Each structure stands twice: as C-alpha cells, then as structure tokens.
C-alpha cells in the first residue's frame, strides 16, 4: 500500500513540484528571516537566481551552530501565535536545539509519518505500540501522530519499564511496534524468558525503528527476535522529526519523502556535490516547512542516494541507511552527544581541563557509556572520599546537562591512548562488535 500517490509519481512531476516549493521556501526565508537575508546579501544572491533544482547549490548552508546561535526562536518565520508545538534536542550547558511547528507543519509531519506506517503495512485495523519516549524528543509524539493519521489504535507506552510494556503488548494485541532498535531487542530478550514459544503471546507483524544508527546485524536480530518486518525510519528534529525517509518491504534503502525534503549529498570537506550512488554528507532543504524552514541543513550523517524506481512501486529517491558521521557525534541510546560537550561539562564541573576518553559500548543490547578521566595534580587528593565525590559530581553533571548516564572512571595520568600526540577521545566498541 502507498499512502500518497506523489510517492509513485513520474520523477519529472516530483522534481517540478520540488522546484516550485524550493522557490517558495527561498522567497519565504529571504523575506522573513534576517539571518538568511544577510547570508544572501553576503553571497550576492537574490531569490530569483534560483531557477532550477541544481541552483540549490548556490544557497548558503545552515548548521546546528546557527540554530544554537539563534536560541530559542530566532530562526522562526512566524509569530509565536502561529506556533502550536515546540520540540527540542538535548544541548550543552542548557542550550538545546529548539524547533517549532505551525498547524500546517504538524499536518505535514502527520502526513509523512502516515506514509511510514503505510509502508509498514499499518491501517485502521492495527494496534501500534509506541515505546519511544514522549516529551521534548520528537520520537514519541512523531510516531504517535502518524499512527492516528492512518486510523490505527495507538498505545502511547513511552520508554522504560520493560515488563509492563511486554504485558501491554500481549494484552492489547499490538501488531506494530514503534521503538528504538536497541530497546526493541532488549524487550525481546526479556520476552524470551517466558520460554522458547514466547512469540505465540504476541501478534506483532512489523516494526518502525529509528533514532539511532543501526547495523545490518542488529536489524536482523530485531526482525528475527520478534518475527516481524523491519522498517527503518530516518529523521531529525531540525527537519521535522522522524518521517524524513523510511524503508519499504522490498528494499533496505529508505524512500525519501522528496515532495517535502530536498536531499543533496556533498563532500563534507569541500562542500561539492557527490554523484548519485556515492557516499557523502547528507544536506537537506525543507520544501514545505512554515515555522522553521532551513536551507541546506548539514545533517552530519553520511549516506548515499539513488533514484531508480523501487519494486514496491514508489519512484522517490532512496537513501542508504546512515553509515557514519561527518563529525564526531555519538548517539547514545538515541541521545546525540558530541565529545566537546562532555569536555565542556567536565571543565565546568572541576574548574580544570582534564584529559578524558569516551568509551561507548553495549551492555546486552543497550548502550553503555564510560568516561575515563585522568587524575591530574589539581584533582588528586589524599582522601578516598573526595576522589569519589569528583567522580559522582561529573556523573551527575553529565546527566543534568546532556541527559546521558555515564560511568566516570578515574585513571592514571597519560594512560589514555594517544595517536600522533593527540589523545584518542572516542573509542566506539559498538562498531567493533558488529
């Protein structure tokens, strides 16, 4: 089933629509956002210079830094009276990335999420168990609204409390699971304790999974553990939330909802376009967003796109599952973390810059974060208690500022591995295990 016929339109029709929407968006931000007007003027660019889709390359980039610099609502193009929803990501030192939605934006979000659910085979007959966390994070409410839009019964279970979630899934007869892949697998591990025939208690047929980078192995494990089709959902709050692209039954590649989002793949160092099928950094321009339209947003995600039609009947461009990051961002249980944020928190907590290393690993199927901090003369103490307090203080500062649960381990000075004289800041053991 295909939710909207645009998904299987002729490519020239899709591109025609994209161009007209791109022009509208460019006019909109030029007129309404001083930030973009200034950028256009610096580049000597006028909205009417955009006459083809390729002209998107003339437009300025937008980065996460730009969003932070205009915290909280500086890049909104509408008055707050038209904003009906705010979401936000975690941020360092209390400055998160804030996004806003008008009523029309919410309709678009519902629409693209309805396409996601339809791709997963969901209809009004289905019961969707939503195990994404509800709150400022776009996951919970994003997966919620789309399920309502297709008329399914939504169970807003939110995150945590595995045993209770399993009980609800059994008792309510959930047919579609929406959750992070790691949490889904964790739930499966717990469900398996009921015995080898544990699946007989569940009616699940498909799942919509996203919010964290997932290896092929993990996808297979989730799919097999629950005996369901695996549909991968890509999205980011800056663009809309979940619902930017999703994989269908026929292919592992994700169909991009191109009538709302214009994709480019660029070389992250030179900014030059990369041909179809080749990997590079994904850059997205919003085509229909009202409250916060972004031009050429640098996602930092590494992927590739192809435009061949899919067996499922859709003609939209398809992206590869994210293969990495252009920067050093880590995703820990769905929360985005930059090493520089961790450094900032440690420096603010202890008043000194300490040498540290971030070690991401898996405990079972859940992410586990360890932060090794070298004991310098400044924090060395003759008291075991004082040293333990340093460890606890850094841990709670990380939790309060970055929403991450990390175990801080004090280690000897210079014990953190160096590469060409520079400390190795990140060790991601999750990658080694794949």
């Amino acid at each position, binding site marked *: 089933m295909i939710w909207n016929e645009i998904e299987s339109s002729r490519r020239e029709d899709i591109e025609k629509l994209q161009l007209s929407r791109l022009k509208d968006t460019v006019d909109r931000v030029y007129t309404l956002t001083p930030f973009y007007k200034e950028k256009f003027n610096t580049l000597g660019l006028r909205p009417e210079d955009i006459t083809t889709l390729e002209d998107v390359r003339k437009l300025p980039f937008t980065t996460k830094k730009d969003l932070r610099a205009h915290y909280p609502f500086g890049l909104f193009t509408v008055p707050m009276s038209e904003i009906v929803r705010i979401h936000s990501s975690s941020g360092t030192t209390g400055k998160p990335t804030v996004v806003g939605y008008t009523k029309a934006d919410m309709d678009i979000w519902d629409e693209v999420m309805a396409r996601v659910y339809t791709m997963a085979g969901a209809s009004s007959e289905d019961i969707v168990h939503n195990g994404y966390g509800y709150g400022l994070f776009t996951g919970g409410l994003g997966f919620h609204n789309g399920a309502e839009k297709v008329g399914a019964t939504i169970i807003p279970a939110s995150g945590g409390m595995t045993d209770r979630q399993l009980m609800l899934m059994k008792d309510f007869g959930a047919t579609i699971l929406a959750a992070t892949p790691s949490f889904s697998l964790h739930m499966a591990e717990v469900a398996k304790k009921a015995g080898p025939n544990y699946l007989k208690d569940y009616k699940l047929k498909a799942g919509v999974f996203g919010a964290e980078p997932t290896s092929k192995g993990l996808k297979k494990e989730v799919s097999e553990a629950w005996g369901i089709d695996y549909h991968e959902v890509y999205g980011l709050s800056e663009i809309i939330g979940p619902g930017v692209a999703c994989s269908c039954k026929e292919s592992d590649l994700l169909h991009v909802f191109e009538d709302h989002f214009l994709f480019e793949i660029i070389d992250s160092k030179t900014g030059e376009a990369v041909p179809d099928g080749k990997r590079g950094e994904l850059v997205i321009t919003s085509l229909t967003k009202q409250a916060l339209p972004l031009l050429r947003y640098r996602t930092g995600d590494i992927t590739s796109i192809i435009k061949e039609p899919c067996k499922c009947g859709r003609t939209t461009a398809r992206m590869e599952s994210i293969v990495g990051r252009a920067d050093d961002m880590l995703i820990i249980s769905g929360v985005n973390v930059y090493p520089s944020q961790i450094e900032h928190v440690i420096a603010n907590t202890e008043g000194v810059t300490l040498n540290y290393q971030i070690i991401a690993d898996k405990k079972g199927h859940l992410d586990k974060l360890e932060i090794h901090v070298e004991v310098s003369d400044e924090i060395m*103490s003759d008291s*075991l208690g004082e*040293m333990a307090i340093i460890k606890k203080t850094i841990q709670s500062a990380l939790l309060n500022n970055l929403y991450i649960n990390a175990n801080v381990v*004090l280690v*000897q000075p210079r*014990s953190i591995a160096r590469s060409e004289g520079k400390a190795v800041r990140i060790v991601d053991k999750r990658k080694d295990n794949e």
Partner: protein
Amino acid sequence: MNRIKQLSIFVENKTGQITDVTTLLSNNGLSIKSINLVDSSDFGLLRVIVDDEKKAKEILDENGISLKITDVFAVEIDDHVGSFNDVVTTLSTNNINIEYTYTVSNTKNGAFIFKVNPIEFDKVTQILEEKNIKILKGI
C-alpha cells in the same frame, strides 16, 4: 613538629597497579618504610612512606602516576595495653579530628601514623608532650 612526608598514590583497581609502583620505587633504590592501601570499588590510594619522598615523586611523576605529598606524624608505640587509646583519647579530648590512622611495624616497637589537619600540628605536639607521648622524627 616532626612531620613525616607521606606519598598518597592513586592506583586504578586493576591487576599489577601496586606492583607498578613498588617496582619503580625499588628499581630506583628507594626504601619503603610503610605502606597502607585503602580502596573503593573503582580505585584506591596507596599511602607510602619512603626514605626520599622528593626522589620518589620525581620518579612517579615521570612515569605518569598521580600522587600527593601529605604531612602526617608518627607516634611511637609504647608497649602496653591501651597505648593507642591513650593517643586518640588525648587528641579527641582536645578536639583534634583524626582523618585517618594506621600502624607501621618496622621501628623497634612500631608506630602509629596519624593524619590530622596540618594547622593543628603545633597543638598536637604540645598536648602529646604533656602526656609524655613521643612523636618520632622519622620511621
């Protein structure tokens, strides 16, 4: 007051950490006069008194081992029942807070090592002398 310089050395909670420290000290001809380990589940502190703390600090610093030099004092163990109690009672009746204490046994009768706030050292010297308790110059 006769202060004794004690090294408090940070040790990670893993096999071979103490050996690393003691090997460095012995290979450099430093004599360990006393050694005392306290630990938590994650890490520990090795409190060591050596014959040349400056040299020991240099060597440990060079080898990337964290430490802090702390002033402590030693009291000779007078071989009678209640000798430790005499010392701590004297200190506590004079409101001196003992941060930690341990015993060493390499002097003739052994010694008690005490860590108190350094600003109290003169007061400690005075009150212990009044009770004829002997503070050692070294161990």
